[in-house]
């Protein structure tokens, strides 16, 4: 392959692949946002009052 073609091809392939993987990993890693009313309510410790 000609050097100019190889450089352009590799630059395009690497950029597109890297950005695709980066955003997809972000999608996988970002924690789920609870919907309103679905928020986690911490458990209240009960005390023995007897």
């Amino acid at each position, binding site marked *: *392959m*000609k050097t*100019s*073609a*190889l450089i*352009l*091809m590799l630059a*395009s*392939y690497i950029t*597109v*692949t890297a*950005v*695709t993987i980066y*955003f*997809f990993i*972000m*999608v*996988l890693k*970002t924690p*789920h*946002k609870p*919907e*309103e009313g679905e928020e986690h309510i911490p458990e209240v410790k009960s005390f023995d009052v007897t």
Partner: protein
Amino acid sequence: MTKHNESWGSRVGLVLAMAGNAVGLGNFLRFPVQAIQNGGGSFIIPYLVCFLLMGLPLLFVEWSMGRFGGRFGHHSTPFILDSMSKQRFWKYIGVFGIFTNLAVAAYYCYLESWTLAYIYHSVVGTFSPMDQTQVSSFFDNYTDITTSTTGIPYEAVIFWLLCLFLNTYILSRGLSGGVEKVAKIGMPLLILFGIILAIKAVTLKAGSEGAINDGTVGLDYLWTPDLKSIWNPTVWLAAAGQIFFTLSVGMGSIQCYASYLRSRDDIALNAMSAGWMNEFVEVVLGGSIVISITVGYFGIEGMTNLVSQVGGLGLGFRTLPYLFQQWGPILAVVAGIFWFGLLFFAGITSSLAMGTPFMGFLRDEFGMSREKAAWSFGLFILILGAPAVFFFKQGVFDEFDYWAGTVSLVVFALFEIILFAWVFGMEKGWAEITSGADIKVPRIFKFIIKFITPLLLGAVFIGSLPGIWDKLTADTNGAVIFGRFLLLGVWTGIAVMVYIAYRKRVKEGRFTS
């Protein structure tokens, strides 16, 4: 307002379904041909610039319009658009967002059924004793529905009905139970098949398996920059057009999928991820398979002749099945399954997306159950698709593709960007895009969406006007004219349904926003 409990099962499922909606047969068959016809390696520069200036902004706009409309219980574009403006005519512009999906699905399901048929023929070895001319004429015989290639009468019609049934059944299972499951299986398999075929194509060796060139010769031709063409406006128009069609923007299906998001869900990262996944499939996989294999066997001149004679679709269905036979009987079957399998997954993930806006409209406005709405879609496509199947040779298929798959997309996208940036207002629009965002969206996109994207879309629209004029003034046959009026009738019919739905809303005291 009719509420239904449809929602996405997982974020990954949504992103894969959105990417599947965008990834279609054009990623593998249209992109490489466009690149070759527009300066080879130089095409990629305007192509990626248009992706940043038009593709990504339109994705942001359509995702946020969908989520915004979904908040009011709208799952199709007529009332999504209506909820964004006080002017009542916008709901009739939104008709395009249902019309395009129905009209494209009408011929696209037929195209999808070819891939199923070709998988079958690859497995049973139909192509193995054939020479290049015979494989090419096999396609003509197949699409001439009266000629049977398997002994089954009306084979093409049977595969088409099978494909329609499959689409309808999956849609009747709902978003998380049907569409999302197909995307989760189909997209990884598509990428896997694509990577394997791309490696095989690029590593072809001259003198081995009948090849006359290394696979890299095709890549060299495709990627060598012709720097003169980068200043040619036609190349920029072609690049903008390719970005536009590859991302499935201007259809109304993205808004529909996004309308099932919750109000706090992210759209910026999701849109980025789905958009870039489409680019990976198109540039890396689509750019490596067809041209490398075709140049490997026919040389550059042979490949360019084939492209001008049969186009990208011809390369995929008339040429590759013959070239796979050069790899030996087992590899030929495997390559056939992988190639037509990936085209099938690319097709079905798109056609499923085309079904959801019409279903959403029927469910929202007429209270239909999911199953009834899905079967109504199937029946509609059966009726509307029949002329494209039975009058394929007369050009009805191409006519549908031109008006619904090309012109309608540009018109709708131009209207929706004006609505979003200038009527709804960029401040509110920007707040919608960034609300709940899991990434920081660069503020430059605010300027791009308001000024650059409408200008680029306007240029694409103006650039397509001479073609529209030529199409309207050219001599044509009765079947094509019938197809044209049928499409007009479909658009009008949907507009009437929107009017009835609107009157129903007014009567019942339901508001659109």
